[in-house]
């Protein structure tokens, strides 16, 4: 039952429904035009729900047709093969990114980008520890020079503020 179309359709209905709830809560004033700030958002919300329903139906129908054609079980399994593993690895990288957001202003750009390079390379499977350390250090210095010195961007100094970095 859980084909990609079915999951995509249900997700669209859910997103559309939540969006509709908020679009109906938009305040209107007497000075608004006839359509108002909520006019098009409501249209978008209903369209998303409607299209999501069509996609869900497509998913169910195509699954039933596949089952009737004698492909019971195989199609669904093949469709999701390896996706759970992909999702886990992606979640790990996402966690590293979120971690960077939390530390960049406290640790400072140079230090946090070095840690980011180190942790990401190790997480993605880099084997040689000494090489990873060298790449993280040189990479961080390269990025710092490019953004702070060459482009003149104000990056957070954090712990290294006293060193003027």
């Amino acid at each position, binding site marked *: 039952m859980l084909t*990609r179309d079915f999951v995509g359709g249900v997700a669209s209905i859910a*997103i559309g429904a939540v969006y509709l709830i908020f679009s109906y809560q938009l305040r209107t004033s007497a000075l608004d035009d006839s359509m108002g700030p*909520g006019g098009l958002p409501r249209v978008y919300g209903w369209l998303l729900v409607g299209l999501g329903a069509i996609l869900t139906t497509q998913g169910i129908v195509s699954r039933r047709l596949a089952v009737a054609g004698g492909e019971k079980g195989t199609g669904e399994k093949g469709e999701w093969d390896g996706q759970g593993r992909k999702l886990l690895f992606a979640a790990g990288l996402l966690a590293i990114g979120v971690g960077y957001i939390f530390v*960049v202003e406290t640790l400072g750009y140079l230090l946090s*980008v070095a840690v980011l390079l180190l942790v990401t390379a190790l*997480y993605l499977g880099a084997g040689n520890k000494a090489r990873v350390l060298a790449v993280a250090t040189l990479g961080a210095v390269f990025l710092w020079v490019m953004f702070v010195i060459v482009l003149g961007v104000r990056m957070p100094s954090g712990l290294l503020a006293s060193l003027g970095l």
Partner: protein
Amino acid sequence: METLTHTAAFLLDWHVILAALIGVTWGIMGGALPGISPSITMALLLPFTYTLDPTSAIVLLASTYIGAEYGGSVPAILIRTPGTNAAAATVIDGYEMNRQGKAGLALGISLYSGVIGSLFGLAMLMTLSGPLAQVALAFTPMAYFALGVLGLSVIATLSGENLVKGLIAAILGLIIATIGSDPVTGGTRFTFGSPELLGGIEPVMIMVGLFAMSELLVQAGKRGQDERVTSRPRIQFPDWPLAKRLIPAQLIGNGIGTVEGVMPGAGGTIASFMSYNEARRWSRYPEEFGKGSPEGIAAPETANNTVAETALVPLLSFGIPGSNSTAILLGGFLIHGIVPGPMLFQKSGEVVYGLYAGLFTAAIGQLFIGMAMLPVCIWLVNRPRPYLNAFIFALILSGIYSIHSEAFDLGIMIAAGVLGFFMRMLRFPFLPTVLGLVLGYLVESNLRRSLVLSGDDWMIFVDDRISLGLLILSFLFIGGSIAKRAYGVLRHRSSSTFAENAES
């Protein structure tokens, strides 16, 4: 003639020259990395363009596109892995030539054909984009609304296998575009009390997240050693007899590249394969195709480089991006407050002429940079993926943070990356989302302004001649796409029935 004079003035502008050469260099490196498409290569540069003047920023991005189209052929020829989708057709004969010990010549043909394609495409771009400037001043809010509808109608051809998924993707983009201030009353919508959302979400955050971040999330699950380049070829250009033999294939590439580039949704990949096919059909040596034919490299490489320029025609003329790469370029325009479309030549003519000059510099520069960068490309292709991806991740996060020095932007970009990851997993196309995102404001503001002007009379869109013309064009576009899909389904069914009958 006037266009040429204005363009010539920028040919010696060192900002333009530098941006073009850096763009081509970056593009060749990005294109050479399998998995990193031209649009991702361009998206990585987007945050840097904030610090540049508008002309340099646009030239940098457009030159990257040109460089990436050639760069894609390097791994295609050397390790049978196309660096870009458009280089897939080059694999067939390019890798065969490599196996025959002619990798240097194959790369030379690719580079030289790419330069020819770029120069021809630029001539077409300059010829086809100009006339629109004449009607620019006649554009009313109604016409702008219809222009937005025309842009959204392109979704019908960009949706891939499933039109419903394309439409859902487009609505997601339109929904993101509603966050921030209301375009007519100025009131806030969907900001949830966050001051960072008052100005809306900048397309650059979404584009970098959708294209680059989501690709990294997908690649996070890939393990194992990629194929390595073991040879050290040197680029060798064809001699005169061979160059003469390549001319018909290059002309085919030019012709198909022009048509496919101008049509939104077609793109370099289709142009490359069509050119390859036509070059084989018209070749005096069709039996060599698939076995290391030089024309089999010349035709697709000329075509995809022609597309890199002619794809800018609908973008500059109507503000409609017909491919992922031109959508990123549109993001570059929007960053600098420039809205491509009918008024572009009136309001920002110098940016357009600078772009033409930059594209010319990039095309010529590509010849020399392509030769010089080959060892670098081979070195990059041989780097272990974990280091490259870690560096790209750091570059994305640094680039986005540098825009407003706000960690909030990083959160938006990462959220867009997650959205893109699930869209990839569930096979939703990206381009409709980008179209919805960039056209959402145009459609809503002009629709509501027109209705205020007409006292809520919808006939105003029919009474305005330009608006009516564009709306008819939109319906024809949608109708044509649906009819083409229906024809494809019927043809598929009838051929299946025929096969079943034949079997029984």
